[in-house]
């Protein structure tokens, strides 16, 4: 077995080095394909980041009367959690609200002074729901007589339209990203398949001769599979190098351009996964497409 593996390794080297142009063409197409996949993955991460950031802007704030008992607020909080799909609910007592506002404007002392004059501040319950339709229902819920009496103000109506638009946009982005990914992956797969097939075609005569002189299918397929693995290794390494360089060089402009999304950091943290993912995808595609390409000629 060892002698066969040694020979398969030797033959796979021949496939690569005696057909450098084909090998290079394959590498280029695969590097483009893997880069596209990686970009898509990062784009999806960016999309999630963006949607989360946008959705964070959508919330409803309930301001309480200064006389409201903390136990009543707690009860309301619990019943909201029980009745709706709450993503985040946070209670801020009036002191905390004031503190946060002062912190926010600490570099503008004149604003701080105005804020102190404007007071007192009201305790607030900030609510984010998983489902945007729940905001309306929460409004109806808090307008029940026994709850309404503890509420001073509701900060929603003025932002209602914006919130609904945000959710529509984020849903559309999700669908667009999904559709775009599928289309791009299908197109790229077709290109990759045809490149591998063309590569195999140049070996057509050789494969038929090998079969006619008594080589087993394993002995014929083996070197192709192994050369596929070596190509995959090489391609994954190139993609890793390209992305690392790209993100490192353009780290700052990208951070600004992507609204604070640190793509370099993400890539650095998951570098090994990116490499293994690329290696696995590339090797699997090389193997599957090569086997599909060779299959016809092995029937001899």
């Amino acid at each position, binding site marked *: 077995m060892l002698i066969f593996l040694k020979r398969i390794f030797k033959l796979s080297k021949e496939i690569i080095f*005696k057909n450098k142009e084909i090998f290079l063409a394959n590498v280029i197409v695969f590097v483009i394909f893997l880069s596209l996949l990686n970009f898509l993955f990062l784009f999806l991460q960016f999309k999630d980041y963006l949607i989360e950031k946008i959705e964070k802007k959508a919330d409803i704030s309930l301001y309480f009367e200064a006389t409201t008992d903390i136990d009543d607020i707690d009860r309301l909080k619990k019943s909201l959690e029980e009745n709706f799909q709450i993503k985040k609910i946070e209670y801020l007592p009036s002191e905390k609200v004031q503190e946060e506002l002062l912190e926010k404007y600490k570099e503008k002392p004149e604003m701080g002074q105005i804020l102190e004059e404007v007071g007192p501040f009201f305790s607030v319950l900030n609510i984010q729901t998983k489902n945007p339709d729940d905001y309306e229902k929460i409004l109806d819920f808090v307008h029940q007589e026994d709850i309404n009496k503890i509420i001073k103000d509701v900060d929603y109506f003025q932002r209602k339209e914006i919130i609904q638009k945000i959710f529509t946009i984020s849903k559309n982005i999700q669908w667009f990203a999904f559709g775009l990914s599928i289309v791009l992956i299908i197109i790229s797969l077709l290109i990759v398949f045809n490149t591998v097939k063309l590569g195999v075609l140049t070996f057509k005569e*050789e494969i038929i*001769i*090998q*079969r*006619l*002189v*008594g*080589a087993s299918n394993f002995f014929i397929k083996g070197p192709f599979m192994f050369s596929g693995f070596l190509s995959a290794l090489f391609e994954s390494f190139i993609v890793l190098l390209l992305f690392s360089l790209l993100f490192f060089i353009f780290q700052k402009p990208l951070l600004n351009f992507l609204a604070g999304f640190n793509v370099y950091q993400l890539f650095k943290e998951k570098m090994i996964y990116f490499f293994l993912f690329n290696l696995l995808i590339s090797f699997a595609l090389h193997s599957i497409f090569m086997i599909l390409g060779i299959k016809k000629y092995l029937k001899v």
Partner: protein
Amino acid sequence: MILFKNITKIYKKTNGEQIFALKDVSFEIKENEFVILAGKSGAGKTTILKLIIAEEKPSLGEIYFENTKINDLSPDKISKLRQKIGIVFQDYKLLKTKTAKENLSYVLEITGEKDERIQLKIKNLLSFVGLEKRENNFPDELSAGEKQRLAIARALALSPKIILADEPTANLDPICTFEILRLFLKLHQMGKTILLATHNENVIKFLKKRIIILEEGKIVRDDKNGRFII
């Protein structure tokens, strides 16, 4: 060694039309025989050779190689069968990206032979066909006669008992033709069974061996001495 029992081979065209490449063909080739398969182009000579190496399957009838039925073998068994048969093709079918030496070593590597033995065998084979000085040349750097001699060396690499040759002299000039035929006669003297397909009258006259004549897929004559003209 080879037994054809009522073999019929039908090819189907895309329009459904049937072409009879062989019609009820039966013959036997015994060990150490030299048999010439003769006939015009399209008579069925190549089909017979393809059936022996299981490149094609018969539509009807049975084929035996060393008493084993080879009608419907698995891909692995086909490889094993071909390792027992040396094949020489009209168009040489050499691996173009490999040197003369590598063309021979490839066949030997298939069987898992050790590297030292492979080197020794290659040296002997190249010397047998007179190509010692061409071991590092690629097929495209060899003359037609040299290519065919290399193809014969490759056919001998796995020490087969039988050698099939499909029009081995068709692309050669008269001098090369007789050099190649002498090589086949030498192999026959060494104990190999030879089945040679040709349509060349001079080859048949020169060899003077058992001749099977095919016409439109049928055996029209199976003669022990090759002294007649097609």
